[in-house]
């Protein structure tokens, strides 16, 4: 039901006002002007309506009409999403490129997932079955890794009166007809869903599983949870994007939705070039087979940037309903908040803190709260983890976007400029970061990894904190005057920092590390500290207790021990024991003499 209504009277960048548009609804999608630019209604008055336009408005004239589509801004959810790259409103960039221009043209309309492509669908219900919302009626092998389950949309249920035979169809083909009191419903291979409303679920599950990322500082110190939220704030050049890429590459989620919000075009290109070459450690298949990319780079229209985050999370929710674990990377939510600010400014709304609109905190909360571990309609368990990068100007974490994000996320991975400049990667500051999931996840760690895993974590963090305090003194008076047990803390902290927290994204043994190896590494470092500490307490001077060769060996164990030779860690522990026991006996002899 598309009708021509209204007349444009006001144009200011992406904000357009129309009169004589009586039937427009809030959040309805409209086509603006003769070029049919895509827009969304953001306010309605007695006879005027305000529209934000998702494309460049240059060339638009007063008096041009708009077309009402009668439905809210929605995305098409069906096979063809995975492996694809979309713009902020789910238009495929690959297909746009294939039309022959390296630029993004305006007015190409609401194209979305491929309607021509044939998919092998296996219909799993038969005539006479009663099916309700969330039930699977057909399956499509979308990529090697992902089986796409076609589900009955949330508000429909009924009796199957027609079921198509399994076979190859395009997404417009009707597979199932359902009958209920309201009449007949046709189910095709896709469903439409408005991006701004969360898809309904049966219930939320408590958080119980970590999202394993293969990154040591995250997995063992500041874990992410499946269904949880995390923020990665950091100033320019601290490696937010690299950290996000690492998480996208190595985390054990089934599907990754990567949203490039207002960041550089070259970064999306990097993802597009790199991801097909990297194999998923679990399946051995290219990680592109489980990745969806959404790109609204810094030079694309700002209104679509605001929508891109919702498009991404809606796609994620759809796959979550199939029973998958999804991780969403949003890089960066600051650019998204700036888009909100720009549009709010053009609407002449009252600005709040630093010019951001007063509703910034609630919008951020709405977005992050769509994460969760849930039982979806149809009884499948799935989860969405949101990992948002935040780019505070000047690296100042007290600005509104970081502060408001902090309120709604539970894991906070603070990136640090001085670490990044000191070539300590990932530049996550261990003193300022935190994870609120430790208590929720401790049963999992104790059962799956080792009972003392979290104890080791606490010990290491304590050492690092101690070291930070000692460094203040060292800065004033130098390291030499410290007593030997404190100098040992400095030495062991150095091992933790260089040998454990630093992780080389380009080394084959170090790019991602299993939790087993992480645990063993912690164990080795802990043994080193305990043994050396004993010796120092006995009066062994630090110059002897800190054996350069041994320390070097432990610092480089991350490179030298591969995942299939974890028993080498036990040998290392033995070596530590032998060395310090020898030192102990040699020293006690010396004393008694």
């Amino acid at each position: 039901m598309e009708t021509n209504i209204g007349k444009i009277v006001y144009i200011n960048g992406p904000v357009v006002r129309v009169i004589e548009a009586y039937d427009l609804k809030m959040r309805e999608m409209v086509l603006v002007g003769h070029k049919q630019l895509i827009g969304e209604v953001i306010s309605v008055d007695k006879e005027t309506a305000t529209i934000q336009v998702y494309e460049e408005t240059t060339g638009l004239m007063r008096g041009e009409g708009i077309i009402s589509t009668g439905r809210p801004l929605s995305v098409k959810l069906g096979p063809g999403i995975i492996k694809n790259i979309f713009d902020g409103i789910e238009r495929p960039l690959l297909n746009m490129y294939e039309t022959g221009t390296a630029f993004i043209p305006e007015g190409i309309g609401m194209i979305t997932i491929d309607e021509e492509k044939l998919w092998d669908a296996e219909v799993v219900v038969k005539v006479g079955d009663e099916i309700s919302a969330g039930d699977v009626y057909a399956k499509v092998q979308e990529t090697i890794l992902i089986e796409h389950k076609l589900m009955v949309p949330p508000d429909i249920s009924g009796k199957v009166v027609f079921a198509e035979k399994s076979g190859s169809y395009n997404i417009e083909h009707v597979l199932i007809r359902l009958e209920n009191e309201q009449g007949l419903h046709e189910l095709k291979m896709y469903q439409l869903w408005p991006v701004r409303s969360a898809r309904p679920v049966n219930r939320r599950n408590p958080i119980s599983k970590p999202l394993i990322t293969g990154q040591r500082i995250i997995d063992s110190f500041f874990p992410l949870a499946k269904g949880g939220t995390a923020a990665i704030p950091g100033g320019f050049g601290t490696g937010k994007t690299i950290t996000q890429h690492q998480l996208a590459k190595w985390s054990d989620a089934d599907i990754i939705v990567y949203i490039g919000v207002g960041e550089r075009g070259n970064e999306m290109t990097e993802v597009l070039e790199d991801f097909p070459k990297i194999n998923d450690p679990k399946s051995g298949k290219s990680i592109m087979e489980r990745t969806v990319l959404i790109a609204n780079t810094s030079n694309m229209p700002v209104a679509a940037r605001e929508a891109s985050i919702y498009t991404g999370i809606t796609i994620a929710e759809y796959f979550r309903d199939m029973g998958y674990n999804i991780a969403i990377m949003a890089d960066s939510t600051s650019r998204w908040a700036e888009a909100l600010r720009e549009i709010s400014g053009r609407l002449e709304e009252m600005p709040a803190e630093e010019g951001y609109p007063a509703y910034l905190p609630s919008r951020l909360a709405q977005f992050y709260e769509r994460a969760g571990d849930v039982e979806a309609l149809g009884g499948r368990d799935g989860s969405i983890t949101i990992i948002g990068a935040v780019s505070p100007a000047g690296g100042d974490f007290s600005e509104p976007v970081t502060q408001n994000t902090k309120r709604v996320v539970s894991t906070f991975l603070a990136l640090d400029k001085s670490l990044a400049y000191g070539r300590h990667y990932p530049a996550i500051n261990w003193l300022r970061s935190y994870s609120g999931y430790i208590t929720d996840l401790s049963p999992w760690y104790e059962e799956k990894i080792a009972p003392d895993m979290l104890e080791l974590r606490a010990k290491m963090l304590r050492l690092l904190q101690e070291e930070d305090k000692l460094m203040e003194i060292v800065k004033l008076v130098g390291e030499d005057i410290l007593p030997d047990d404190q100098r040992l803390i400095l030495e062991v902290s150095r091992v933790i920092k260089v040998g454990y927290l630093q992780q080389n994204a380009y080394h084959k043994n170090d790019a991602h590390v299993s939790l087993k190896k992480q645990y063993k590494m912690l164990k080795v470092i802990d043994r080193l500290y305990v043994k050396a500490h004993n010796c120092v307490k006995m009066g062994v001077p630090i110059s002897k207790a800190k054996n350069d060769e041994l320390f070097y060996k432990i610092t480089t164990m991350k490179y030298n021990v591969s995942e299939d030779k974890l028993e080498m860690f036990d040998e290392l522990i033995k070596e530590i024991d032998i060395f310090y026991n020898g030192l102990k006996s040699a020293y006690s002899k010396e004393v008694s003499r």
Partner: protein
Amino acid sequence: MRLKYLKLHKVEGPLIILSGVKGAMFGEVVDIEMEEGGHKKGKVVQIDGDKVIIQVFEGTAGISLHNTSVSFTGKPMEIPLSKDILGRTFNGVGEPIDGAGFYGDRKYDINGRPINPVGRKYPRNYIETGISSIDGLATLVRGQKLPLFSGDGLPHNELAVQIVKQARISGDEESNFAIVFAAMGIKHDEADYFRKHFELSGVSNRVVMYINLADDPIVERISTPRCALTAAEHLAFVHTGDYDQYDQL
């Protein structure tokens, strides 16, 4: 026939406001004709009912509500471009300021369009500047950007000239390398300094300059980098060359 509007509603800073306008296009360029002769250009920045707000390039000095006529061109801001721009100097709105005229067979919209990330290639080749601290530590990569931060009294102009003079591409595409130099708000003597040094070092035939001088209208500074980028895109994609771009803010 083009309508001419003879009466302005309001003049304020670099903006003029017209009322009673039908058919204005958002972003289109307007021609402003002064009674005592001379033309100015402007751009539609807001349409509100029959009121149109126009941002005037080249400044609003001398404009009163009655002495000026405004006509709408129906086109967004465009500049003529061809391969002949190499070696020439233009102002912030793409008009030649080196004393000769310029004719390009096609005109290009300076607002550009976003590049599709799918169509990009990840930057791999680098641009050699011959300055060891740049090449070694903060390498300038082809298809990337590199900002220089500077303050008063620091020799950023010298550095800029040095980069332009020495920049080369590794590999065999040497002959296709061009430099688009945009300078915003620089002083006359600085502009002379740039021009002289480009000529002396013999690179001026592969340099295009877009210069907005310190006493030129401020609003032109908005369009200066856009003109330069459009020129650069033109050279890069139409004449399959490569470009390097340096902005001074």
